[in-house]
């Protein structure tokens, strides 16, 4: 058995396989629901209803999608250069810390726009710096960034834990490990008054377009793609490979940290250890499902958020464990990766 690349895959092939992957995911999900003792059709219906069945449900899904857009973009940008940033989680928390620090300082008296810009900018800066270390270790000494970025996640969580028990502990928190909260006036406003959706979502979409323009219209985007596809040829051609990797890392780290800024300033208002239920890792799934396309990241982030939000609501109604959401994600990803491969190659014998 061999895989043979297809020169010009037909549109039917390129759309058919991903569609089949989604269909298969639904079939497997139904089987899982059946095993859990529930009616599969009712279960899927409940997931759909919980994710998008009402205005409240839809806004909840978009809110949940917001941090995933940022971490998904962070991963998509880095993976395009074959820079394996597994540390979006750490960068997210770095951004969250700075947001709280700035938002609870004297600067909080600034008007909304400059204050939010300042918080977002400093968050992005800190996220960029967090990824700078691993990328310099990679370019200077060849240290594998998968290891360094992954382990930094744990270091960062412990650091946040220390901050919440120590210097940043909320004196009014009644002993709960959380930080002081931002004043309402220091928070990201909602897009429409009365609807629970904040400007972080809009910022995510703006970032997606910005990344798309960088990738397709600028020399940096061209360099990133060249380095990702063939680092040897890129170096030979005179592309400053190390500089490109550093720029990619700054962009990626900054984007991931914006997820922390957006969650703190837009949604939670304070820093706590459950700020991110693994948004950094889920960002990898989001980016892979989107084939690393920045605009696709928005779509896949909403899809993934919908599955989680819908499953939460379904599990309350149908008494099916929420784990089904994680399994759905895993299955969808596996099928999708396979579908992407099969849409570009055919399997031949011999």
């Amino acid at each position: 058995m061999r895989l043979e690349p297809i020169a010009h895959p037909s549109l039917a092939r390129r759309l058919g396989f991903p569609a089949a992957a989604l269909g298969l995911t639904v079939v497997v999900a139904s089987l899982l629901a059946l095993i859990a003792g529930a009616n599969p059709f009712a279960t899927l219906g409940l997931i759909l209803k919980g994710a998008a069945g009402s205005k409240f449900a839809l806004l909840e899904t978009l809110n949940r999608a917001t941090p995933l857009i940022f971490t998904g973009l962070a991963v998509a940008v880095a993976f395009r250069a074959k820079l394996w940033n597994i540390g979006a989680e750490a960068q997210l928390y770095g951004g969250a810390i700075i947001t709280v620090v700035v938002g609870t300082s004297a600067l909080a008296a600034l008007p909304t726009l400059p204050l939010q810009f300042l918080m977002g900018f400093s968050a992005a800066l800190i996220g960029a710096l967090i990824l700078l270390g691993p990328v310099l270790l990679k370019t200077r000494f060849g240290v594998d960034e998968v290891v360094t970025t992954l382990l930094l996640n744990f270091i960062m969580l412990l650091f946040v834990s220390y901050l919440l028990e120590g210097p940043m502990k909320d004196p009014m928190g009644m002993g709960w490990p959380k930080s002081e909260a931002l004043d309402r006036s220091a928070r990201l406003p909602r897009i429409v008054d009365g609807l629970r959706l904040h400007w972080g979502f809009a910022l995510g979409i703006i970032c997606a377009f910005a990344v798309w323009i960088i990738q397709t219209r600028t020399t940096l985007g061209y360099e990133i793609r060249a380095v990702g596809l063939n680092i040897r040829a890129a170096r030979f051609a005179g592309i400053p490979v190390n500089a490109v990797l550093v720029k990619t890392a700054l962009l990626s780290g900054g984007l991931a940290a914006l997820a922390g800024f957006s969650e703190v300033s837009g949604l939670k208002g304070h820093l706590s250890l459950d700020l991110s239920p693994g948004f950094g890792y889920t960002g990898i799934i989001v980016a892979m499902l989107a084939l690393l396309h920045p605009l696709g990241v928005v779509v896949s982030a909403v899809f993934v958020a919908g599955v989680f939000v819908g499953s939460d609501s379904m599990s309350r109604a149908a008494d099916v464990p929420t784990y089904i959401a994680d399994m759905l994600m895993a299955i969808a990803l596996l099928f999708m990766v396979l579908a992407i491969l099969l849409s570009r190659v055919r399997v031949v014998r011999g």
Partner: protein
Amino acid sequence: MNQDKTGAQSETVLRLNGITKRFGALVANDAISLDLRRGEVVALLGENGAGKTTLMNILFGHYVADAGHVEAFGEPLPPGQPRAALEAGIGMVHQHFTLADNLTVTENILLGTVPLWRMGLGLGQAKARIAQLSKDFGLSVHPDAKVGTLTVGERQRVEILKALYRDAKILILDEPTAVLTPQETDALFETLRKAVALGLSIVFISHKLHEVTAIADRCVVLRHGKVVGEVNTADTDRHALASLMVGAEITPPEVSPATPGRALLQLRDVSTPSEGAVPGLDHVTLDLKAGQITGLAGVSGNGQAALSDLISGLRMPQNGAMIIGGADQATWSPRLAVHAGIARIPEDRHHTGTIADFDLTENTILETYMDPPVSHAGWMNWSAAENMAQEVIDAYDVRCPGPSTRIRLLSGGNMQKLILGRVLERNPKVILANQPVRGLDIGAITYVHNRLLAARDAGAAVLLISEDLDEIIQLSDVIHVISEGRLSPEFPRGAKTPAELGLWMAGQGFDGDAHAA
């Protein structure tokens, strides 16, 4: 040659019958039949891409044929099973050796013949047998030497010994002379003659006509996957074989005398560090003069890569000076090399010269994307880039559906034409051509050579690096030989015979032999 074919010697040991193999739309082998008799050398002659290697991979069980079958000693060979081929007494010596550098010669030969945990036992017996085989076939190599320390020629002997140790009765040699000096080639032929005298049969795959006529009894010519001729070498000549192989009369490029100008690139006593077993440059002094092709002959892995990397901008001299256009280079990088007017044609066009998943436009601008008109202040101008690609495609006859085709879909020849166009369109002062025609068909080879000659006549200084001594001799106005990182003196065209150059390639003639590798 083995002239007396009588009685038992005409027994057919190997028969390929109607072998057909397709890769997608490409028919690599089209109903090929071939007989090999005992004690006979059959040459399989054809250009790159004619289907020689595919055919041998089918025979050896690496591929499964779509149609046809293989018989060894009258028994059908089950398809797709290399082990069955081995057991039937077929041994293959690949173009690229399959040896473990960190094991000794004996261990490499035993590998796969006995279970690993028994390898220590019976080592003495095995060594004795290897020694006997070495003696019988004239394959001198030390059984306890680590393969990593051996020369290319010695490694090839180990590969042959490996096949003989497994009682191979049929030897298949895939382009065995590609990496050898002329002297090593002669020694190989001596071994092959001894082998056929002892009753072995040999399939000799090559595209070099003089070797085929020197060693083979019969010659099967492949073109575009079909057998286009089968002749006894005694009844034919090189010219007839060449016409058969190419399907047309070949006209080698006309090389007019050069009119060398001043030196555009000079190396003064340059050394570079060695990397593992691959030597760096060892006090190299070299002048590349305008309007002249300087040929660099040598067996692969003797410092050509270091020299090529140096001129490409990938590495700095450790000591000594590099002077370009009269100016000493203090800093150096690929981008500076491009800006200094150096056209670089890399050895590996698939992995270094191009990015396979980039389209032709993106590959055309790889070296110039930072300059107008392709980009301004960091913003790409894709229509300007596409125009540039289209110009190269038109001017250099790159056969492709269009500039938005991914380059991985192009043939090697068209890929190389795009690289040529990319670098020559800028009217370079210096051209580094590292193995520019390896793996190309004769049409593309002639095209590349003519372009290089035209660039020379337009005043460029050309450095031609090749392992093919014939190519060097044909094109070069002056020749240097490189061996273990040392550079020979400059030999004008015709000053040395191929045999004399071969001795230099083997490391003889350099001042003092105290150099460490």
